[in-house]
């Protein structure tokens, strides 16, 4: 973790406010495995870290550059495949490449592919870019099962991370060692991507996203700005791929198929594409939904789909957007004005949604249960799913909850407006 100390070190004008979050993040990552020591928890945290890097890389396109890609997984996949091949070459030819450096090569492979694809796909943003990304994504995913020599066909390519040279005595036999390696890379990549957004190119990516034509009239070629962002995004996606290869020691077609590309769009948008930390929230939430919610319900993807559509419709800023909406009331010291209205609306709404979920679960259970398995447990209550009563109660709870929420929503809106009302400072009153 010495890296974070080094890079800000060069910056003379850095304030503690800028260093502190990163130091806290480093500390946080360092102590997490002490709290959650089980191997499965560490596996899930590794998965989260990889997803975070990938989502941040994706957001360099979607959020920062305004490019909607439906095929970004190919860059992570390429990084993964190259890394696992390199892992095998290291073993076979006894090359002096310590494992912790492997993600760099993953990143370079992602970068190389991004240069090729970006050379023709970044000409336009918007729909045309989205369609090219979809086509190229399909193409690479389809060839991955045809070109077995490189992609390994259906079973993919596997390697063994422990055959490489020990790195300062660490052989990466244990999950926890892999965790610290992944966490270090997470911190480095996130910091680099954050710094990237502060560079002239990163700023111009925003400008091109907002108004590509205007950007051309201040001297920048929108296409080249997009191309640079695209390549950088491919590089970091490749790093995520390299880490994937180290973690799972196997890379398969699923790493670059369209489902994976779609998932990363979902993750980034749910978390909030408009803010740097949005994809982080999205990645953590999605990994949890995927690994934990799926243990409890078979129709979790239905909930996920509904959540996604609702987010696009009502909170296009994602979760990060919702959080950041509260910055103004917080600055004005008016958050307390929102507490009661929130309780009055969100609590019944949550109960109503739980009721709806209950209805779905009961119907699903009824249709899929085995004879004699009428009993089901929902929200810690066990009941007979074939009796009409649970369904009626769930429906009733849903209806009442949503009805109350609708009734109290206007009050919430008013409270919200009151909490946000700022009297704009007159023009003459400048900031220091």
């Amino acid at each position, binding site marked *: 973790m010495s890296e974070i100390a080094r890079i800000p070190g060069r910056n003379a004008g850095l304030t503690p406010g800028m260093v502190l979050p990163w130091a806290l*993040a480093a500390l946080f990552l360092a102590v997490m495995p002490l709290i959650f020591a089980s191997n499965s*928890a560490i596996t899930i945290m590794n998965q989260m870290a990889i997803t975070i890097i990938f989502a941040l890389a994706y957001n360099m396109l979607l959020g920062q550059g305004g490019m909607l890609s439906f095929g970004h997984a190919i860059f992570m996949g390429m990084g993964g495949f190259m890394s696992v091949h390199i892992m095998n070459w290291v073993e076979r030819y006894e090359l002096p490449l310590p494992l912790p450096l492997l993600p760099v090569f993953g990143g370079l492979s992602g970068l190389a592919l991004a240069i090729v694809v970006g050379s023709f796909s970044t000409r336009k943003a918007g729909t045309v870019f989205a369609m090219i990304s979809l086509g190229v994504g399909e193409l690479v995913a389809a060839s991955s099962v045809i070109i077995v020599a490189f992609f390994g066909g259906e079973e993919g390519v596997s390697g063994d991370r422990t055959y490489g040279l020990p790195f300062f005595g660490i052989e990466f036999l244990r999950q926890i060692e892999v965790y610290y390696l992944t966490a270090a890379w997470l911190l480095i990549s996130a910091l680099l991507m954050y710094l990237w957004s502060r560079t002239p190119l990163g700023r111009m990516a925003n400008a091109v996203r907002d108004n590509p034509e205007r950007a051309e009239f201040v001297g920048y070629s929108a296409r080249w700005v997009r191309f640079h962002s695209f390549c950088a995004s491919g590089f970091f996606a490749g790093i995520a791929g390299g880490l994937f290869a180290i973690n799972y020691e196997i890379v398969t077609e699923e790493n670059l198929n369209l489902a994976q590309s779609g998932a990363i769009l979902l993750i980034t948008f749910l978390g909030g594409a408009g803010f740097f930390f949005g994809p982080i929230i999205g990645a953590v939430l999605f990994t949890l939904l995927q690994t*934990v919610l799926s243990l409890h319900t*078979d129709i979790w993807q239905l909930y996920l789909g509904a959540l996604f559509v609702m987010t696009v419709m009502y909170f296009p800023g994602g979760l990060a957007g919702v959080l950041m909406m509260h910055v103004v009331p917080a600055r004005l010291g008016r958050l307390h004005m929102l507490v009661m209205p929130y309780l009055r609306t969100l609590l019944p709404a949550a109960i109503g949604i739980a009721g709806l979920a209950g209805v779905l679960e009961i119907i699903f259970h009824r249709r899929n249960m*085995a004879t004699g398995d009428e009993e089901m447990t929902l929200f810690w209550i066990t009941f007979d799913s074939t009796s009409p009563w649970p369904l009626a109660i769930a429906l009733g709870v849903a209806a009442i909850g949503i009805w109350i929420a609708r009734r109290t929503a206007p009050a919430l809106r008013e409270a919200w407006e009151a909490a946000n009302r700022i009297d704009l400072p007159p023009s003459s009153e400048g900031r220091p």
Partner: protein
Amino acid sequence: MRRTTRIGLGAALALSISAAAAFADTIKIAFIDPLSGPFAATGEQGLAQYRFAAEELVNRKGGVLGGKMFEIVPFDNKISPKESLIQLQVAIDQGIRFIAQGNSSGVANALTDAINKHNRRNPDNRVLFLNYSAVDPALTNDKCNFWHFRFDANADIKMDALTDIIQQDESIKKVYIIGQDYSFGKAVAAAAVRFLNEKRPDIEIVGNELHPIGKVKDFTPYARKIVASGADAVITGNWGSDMLNLGRAILDNGFTGPIYTYYAAADGITAAFGEAGDGSLKLVGEGQLNPPVSARADAYVTAFKKKYPNKDIGQPRIANVIEMLARAIEKAGSDTDIVAIAKALEGMEHDALFGGKVYMRPQDHQAIQDVHVLAHTNDGITHDFDNSGYGLKVEKTVRMAGMDSPTTCRMKRP
């Protein structure tokens, strides 16, 4: 970055809840297969069969080791190798020592590799891999390991058996081979060519081609070529909607000969083929449902259908997995000494519930058993699939198929 903290705490909570598995004195078997997504139906079928087999064949008889019951713990791998590895880790953390998986050879490859590494790196916490359905020959050849046991006949053995039967059918002079363009489809094609050349050099292979997996909308052009080639029989390894669509296109375009295949039953496919497939569709597989081999087997299926009216015994070998595991645990006298259990499984001979014997070949951990050619029909069906009236009836049988088939496996024993 600071946001991670809050969400992270939520994660912690969720993890601790899910990890708090009930601590009863049971022997847990992790069932890692797709339980959501497009392949969930297949996973749910397998899960029901496992649960029923554990209940019916072990727990009802008082369990093993003097009263320990079998418990099937489902894990949803969404048919993804990555998710499977995560779920494997969760299962191991819960103290589960037996991993059952079957759908997708890709997943099986990832799991067998991961389990092999895990057992090497954690010798006091080993696990056993019970592969009940993944048929990639490599799993018991180049990629074999001591912890992996396959209860299904592999793709080569099935093709060996199938070509034995084609060998006896003098009316077949021309064969068309078509399959999905990936490892399994290619393995089927290669095996078919090899065995046919050995056994019936006079048979002309009039077509041998691959199509993209899961991408073909319309199989008509392929069907036209098959009809045009004058083939007497078609061999395909297709599954899922690729199987259904290929089969229907072939039959719709006037092909009347047999279509030999591996996976064209249950999960709605039997119902969808219905009348059209009668007389043409022939499956290669183990386990005899029709006609029932014994009153016991008959009662078993009937009881299963009573409990799961919308599911089928599509994988009769699951009963073998449970019974043989129970016997191995009894023989080893322990449910934690994985090496002893594995050694007890090696070379085990077992009278299968659905007929014939099963022999777990020690050199590669491949179960050797009777392989049948099963006809899709509604005639003489006691136990149908998809409640459609259609089911699979045994037409021909190869006893102990592949008993002396070669293997490249060099088993490393602990």
